[in-house]
């Protein structure tokens, strides 16, 4: 068993989604939606959350498709 090398694209996209989510769910962006902006915070949070799930689904469906099958755990055999 070995960890097959991951395509750089999938790694970068994973990191990008994580960083974007971290930025969008945190201060100071959150404060724009929270207090100073017109957006309702709850609508903003659910919209960003849903977008993150969409991005994750996209990543899984279209980017991580070229990952080869790996050896399953011994017990699953």
């Amino acid at each position, binding site marked *: 068993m*070995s960890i097959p090398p991951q395509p750089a694209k999938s790694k970068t996209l994973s990191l990008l989604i994580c960083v974007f989510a971290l930025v969008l769910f945190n201060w100071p962006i*959150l404060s724009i939606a929270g207090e100073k902006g017109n957006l309702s915070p*709850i609508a903003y949070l659910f919209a960003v959350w849903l977008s*993150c*799930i969409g991005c*994750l689904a996209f990543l899984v469906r279209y980017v991580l498709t070229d990952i080869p*099958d*790996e050896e*399953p755990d011994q017990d699953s055999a």
Partner: protein
Amino acid sequence: MSTFLVFLAILVYIGGLFYIAYLAERQHNCISRLAQTPVAYALSIAVYCTSWTYYGSVGKAASSGLSFLTIYLGPTITIGLWWILLRRLVLIKNRFRITSIADFISARYGKSQLLAALVTGIALVGNMPYLALQLKAIKSSFTLITGTGGAAGSFITEHFGPFIVVIMTTFTILFGARKLDPTERHRGMVAAVAVESVVKLVAFLACGIYVCYFLAQGIGDIFSPAYTANPTAAAVLKIGEGEHAYITWSTLLLLSMSAIMFLPRQFHVAVIENSSPRHILTAMWMFPLYMIILNIFVVPIALYGINAGIPVEQADTYVLNIPIIHDNSWLALLIFIGGFSAATGMIMIAAMTMATMVVNHLLLPLFDLATFFAPMRRHLLQWHWIGIIAIISGGYWTESEIGESYALVNMGLISFAAALQFAPAGIGAMFWPRGNKAGAISGLSAGFAIWFYTLMLPAFIKSGWINTAILENGPWGISMLRPEHLLGLSTLPSLSHAVFWSMLFNIGLYVGISILCGQNEEEKRIVEEFHATTDSGISSSFGSEDDMVIDMTEKMEALQEVLNQYFPAEKSLAVLSHERDRLSLNQRQSVSILEFAQFHRRIESTLAGSIGNAMAHRALSRDTVFPRQEKELLSRAYADILSRLNLSPQEIAEKVNYYTARDELLTLHSQELEVRILEKEEEIKARIRAEKALTEAEENFRSIFNMPWKASSR
């Protein structure tokens, strides 16, 4: 609602869970196949959503606005990295036969028993009250739905707590600790937890739909000024109140980001119970989707509850109270079962994983200390059962004794902060080759000590068990040591304050001491294994006739003696024969040191599956099995290989990876060829059958013409 009816519903539900788990454990049926799907894996991770989140989300929304969402947003952020983080953990688990988070951290840092015991201790202190919180939720919701109000009543009411303890213990032992190898997946348990996840989601959605569309005029109505004009209700829609709102928000995000990976139960369901790394792909979108659906109606329920005049102090019970107030008993029963599912799922998984940690990393080292305890090692499975009984009963005792205290009520986040202490050593284990045992032990110890001092101690003081003077003036009147304002830091809320100091010392000591103190040879070897994560065997070509120095008969006896301490004699012999056979060493009287090292590594890995990496390493490092001279011989053999190859370890790892990948491709190709050969054979068989049938038909046809009447007519 009638106590008997609620009790009957619980019995039927638990009976159903037992049946599903039983079917999942058996082979060749629909439930068993479903339990092994990525969907079941993703749903089992939803054990994250406990009764604390099921009932507590609405309570938190009513009292602190939208900050309850951080508990779910944090995991969504971490999940973005699961294909990098979790996949790596799963592959390491398969390679090292990891049994728990304590085993994982100790396996990377020199297979240290001290480190494993430390992680187990932190997990136990951090999770035991959290388990008690789940039992409290079950009891409180039962009291609420039956309307007994805690008064002594029927036999069922009075003995409900012990009944739950017995049921949970039985279920956990039957489906979580029936066999010795904790690395083996528990399909029954996973299936039951997946079903519970569906039930709690359906129940919570039912409550939300009832509130929005049967009690109010739709979700638009709930968010209209009619419901949000009230100042208390308006606060529900805000990020939080006060100057600390965003600091608290970010702290909660950080805590939940680490909790989804490092809470012992999450580590168990996501890593130990994973049967294929590809299942992570499904979980990456399905689990966040599950969480968002679960949270859609939290705010509407909180808004409705506040406007219905139910006090905010009782907001934790809004989910169950609203249908009860409106005499919708059946819906209340469904919601109660949903909350029951949320609590029991957590109790079962947490008890199972904590019992494994306690037995492997606390009890077994104790048994090793004195020969008097030596026979105890032969009863590992029974010790696991005792561990489960002790943990669930301990949780019940905690709930009975301090059920209403500040310490227990606030245990959810305190427990998350305990799990955060594992993050530096855990992440470093995967990505920082320089991290070492001394750094991990110092970081974890310091982090845990500060966590205890700044979070647990104030919780004890606020519960009235310790004098408040320590909180106000500091111990011995030293104000710089006030638990919630350490070193005079008073600009942070208490939770953020604790997280800041514990992480500062934890990360600082882990990194600092790792850089200052180097790694010994053993640690370096483990780090290389962790980072190369390759399982390619040692080539037998390195073992020339001159190197055949290890007498296998002698070694087999020594190894069997060690294994007999943990397994029955037949099993020990079977394990040794199996591994010897796998390495084609069966017919050999003597082997090279490299071949023996590989054999030794496989036996250690098998034993680690039962007693953890640290204990297995200790047991098999004894002089009778692997004496110092042989270890030196092995080092020289490795050095010789490196010098002969004239390559750096990095280059060797790359080459090994290349050949492993090539080997995998060739294996795949040969498997394809085998499939084609099988198809061809099937074709040939079919053709032979057809030809045979044709011959028979021809013979029949001929026989018709050779009939006697035909002959006579002629």
